[in-house]
């Protein structure tokens, strides 16, 4: 599957990011499609606690751990020990563990990272032609 990069407001020329449309499922309910950041530098997937609220998951009762940003600063995450399903182009992938955080920046409320995402598919960032090539394993 091929997905184009997304151009967002930035300084004079805008900024291009690898966001792809993904629908999330949890226990029989599902979301609209979201543009989700594909982040090879993230150890694991992180989602805004708004997504937990949407699925009626009581995230404040989940175990709290810390994630560290690139500058070493910690932020909160709450770990759900069951799968969230990410539907990409009709393919369904089980993402686990699921980290919910109330501290994600507004531009990146949904991040798919290495653990249990990059090992489920082959992802090639072809930025030179504004394309993300994703193949489910």
């Amino acid at each position: 599957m091929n997905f184009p990069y997304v151009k967002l407001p930035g300084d004079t020329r805008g900024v291009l990011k690898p966001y792809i449309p993904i629908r999330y499922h949890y226990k029989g309910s599902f979301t609209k499609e979201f543009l989700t950041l594909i982040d090879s530098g993230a150890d694991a997937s992180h989602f805004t606690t708004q997504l937990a609220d949407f699925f009626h998951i009581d995230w404040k009762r989940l175990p709290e751990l810390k994630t560290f940003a690139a500058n070493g600063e910690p932020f909160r995450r709450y770990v759900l020990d069951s799968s969230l399903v990410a539907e990409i182009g009709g393919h369904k992938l089980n993402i686990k563990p699921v980290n919910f955080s109330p501290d994600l920046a507004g531009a990146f409320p949904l991040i798919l990272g290495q653990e249990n995402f990059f090992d489920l598919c082959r992802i090639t960032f072809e930025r030179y032609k504004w394309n993300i090539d994703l193949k489910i394993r």
Partner: protein
Amino acid sequence: MNQPINLEKILKNHKSGWVAVSKDYKEVVATGQTIKEVTDNLEKTGKEGVLVPAADNYQNFVT
């Protein structure tokens, strides 16, 4: 070469919360401060849409 999806203009006036854009990515069809609110507002329109985070800054991040 692909053409990127260009949301630069249609997101320019949306600085927080969520925006639902049409499936062809050409227009904003609903907004909301939370996922639930934008979903409800999108469903009221009867249109299909893709949800996009709205932010005052998308640039110069290391994630």
